[in-house]
């Protein structure tokens, strides 16, 4: 009985962790290139969930088809937002903390917009797969969650390929390592920043669609929960390290889901935060971090 629970905790931990990994990865792309800690990230994600909700409820579109719609649409929004918001921030006394505050403002605006469009009720994407659950060994697992896991693995693989095998991906990694040097070799840092912002927003939108498949319900005010998870994941994996965030996300998902096996449900978030604080004091640069602390 209890081994079954532990096994289920492990599998759910992997599924949830894969989603957290994507959240952390997109946050880290943004932080790495622009030094922006995106307080509005959770709202981007929930907005992505709402896109999939609307497409399914109004047009009957399969949630997986909402994935590219959200990704491309949010990429465009992020690309534009970068040109709109970032230029003035570069001259701030402390760009990092200023952008943190500014993105908090954006998160309030997004949450308020979603509230006026959809109301405060908890919703879910009521699409059901056939069969509704699959039997894997002794475990019954909801198909939607397995599909979400598969999709996140594909996205994670694509990201790794993008960062290590394509020129824009390499440029992004170079910009994370040394934003001054990359301008010397002739890269337009403004366009690259916009690309990073677009990529982060697009990924957040796609993650939102997966959130709709895995988590039971969402409201316009669910955003901060995901933002916080993202913060924990990027500190765990190393600030500004997109691949480290993938690792941090899986670790956090496993810790959280295992905690629900052994502890009361309401207390389980403490495990995540405890992990965060432990990592910050033991290894402040994160599991794979290379960005220096100021």
């Amino acid at each position, binding site marked *: 009985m209890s081994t079954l629970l532990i096994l289920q905790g492990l599998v759910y931990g992997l599924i949830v962790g894969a989603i957290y990994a994507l959240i952390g990865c997109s946050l880290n792309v943004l932080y790495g290139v622009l030094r922006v800690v995106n307080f509005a990230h959770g709202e981007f994600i929930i907005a992505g969930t709402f896109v999939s909700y609307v497409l399914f409820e109004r047009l009957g579109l399969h949630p997986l088809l909402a994935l590219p719609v959200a990704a491309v649409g949010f990429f465009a929004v992020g690309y534009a937002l970068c040109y709109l918001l970032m230029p003035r921030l570069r001259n701030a006394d402390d760009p990092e903390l200023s952008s943190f505050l500014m993105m908090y403002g954006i998160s*309030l605006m997004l949450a308020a917009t979603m509230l006026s469009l959809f109301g405060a009720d908890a919703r879910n994407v009521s699409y059901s797969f056939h069969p509704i659950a699959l039997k894997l060994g002794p475990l019954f697992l909801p198909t939607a969650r397995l599909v979400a896991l598969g999709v996140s693995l594909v996205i994670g693989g694509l990201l790794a390929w993008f960062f290590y095998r394509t020129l824009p991906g390499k440029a992004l990694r170079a910009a994370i390592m040394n934003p001054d040097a990359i301008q010397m070799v002739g890269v337009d840092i403004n366009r690259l920043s916009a690309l990073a912002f677009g990529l982060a927003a697009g990924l957040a939108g796609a993650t939102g669609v997966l959130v709709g498949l895995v988590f039971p319900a969402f409201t316009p005010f669910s955003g901060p929960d995901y933002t916080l998870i993202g913060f924990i994941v990027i500190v765990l994996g190393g600030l500004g390290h997109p691949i480290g965030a993938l690792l941090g996300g899986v670790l956090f998902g496993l810790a959280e889901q295992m905690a629900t096996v052994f502890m009361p449900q309401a207390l389980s978030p403490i495990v995540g935060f405890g992990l965060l604080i432990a990592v910050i004091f033991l290894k*402040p640069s994160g599991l794979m971090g290379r960005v220096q602390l100021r």
Partner: protein
Amino acid sequence: MASGTMVTEVSDARIARARLLIWLAGSGALLVWLALVPLVSPNLSFWFYLMLWVSMASGFNIISGFTGYLPFGYVAFYGVGAYVTAILVRKLGWPVAVAIPLAGLAGVALSLIFAKTLKLSGIYFAIVSLALAIICQILISNLPEKITGGSYGINLGGTPQPVLSFYAMLAVTVLTLGSATAVAQSRLGMALKAIRDDAEAADALGVNVPRMRLYAWMLAALFPSLCGAVEAWYTNVVDSTTAFDTLITAKTVIYATMGGLGTVSGPLVGAVILFGVDDFIWQRFPVANLFLLGLVVVLLIQFMPRGVVGTLLRRKPLLRRYLM
């Protein structure tokens, strides 16, 4: 040569004294008006919360403006202050006059528990501070219902004392503004600004960097705890969702930034302006309230990151003689 230095020193001291007098006169006039509010204004609540935000923003300025930290979990002190008051009054039956100072001490004690985080900087400090505030919230709402009332919170019982608690808030405001002024005038204030501008240089000049930061941190923790305590008395009820709402931190940061972090008068100016705007938005556009608040934040960071007082001082450096 020597006499020339003497002359500038004397006039510097005179300018500093004049600047202090202007600030004391300005804030003093406001405080006198506030003391009269219960006699003349029907809208006690507006002025109560104005004072609360002035104190929160001014206390925040001591840690953020003077030392450069951004504690995004500042609400932890507010919430703990509120809960300590509620528990002492309701569960132990202690008088409010004892409970509120003890709530302030509890906040300072909490700041000592969190003191290790001061070795982090920048965004790390901000994120950890936020996480700690949420841990406090989760712990308090999961304590046995006998102690913290679970998710329903605690009703303080007894009859509400709006006028008395109003004057308690006034006392907290006087204490906060007075402390901020004293810190800015003192060696501590000078040391903090030196550390903020260049910690290594300050250290080389013999400033005890960790100790000075700790003092600022403890002081900055006292005022939100008192604010939370008095607000709990004023509203007569405490629950973990509102007492630890991130929006409280955010508003504190926004108000202080609006006025100008690192200036003594800034948080007062910013809180008065933005709380007025916020209240107006609430009255006129209750639905769009949150959206407009977010918009104000974005515009503020884009166009006036140093706040009203900070921008004035930068544009017209001569004003430094009159504004602190």
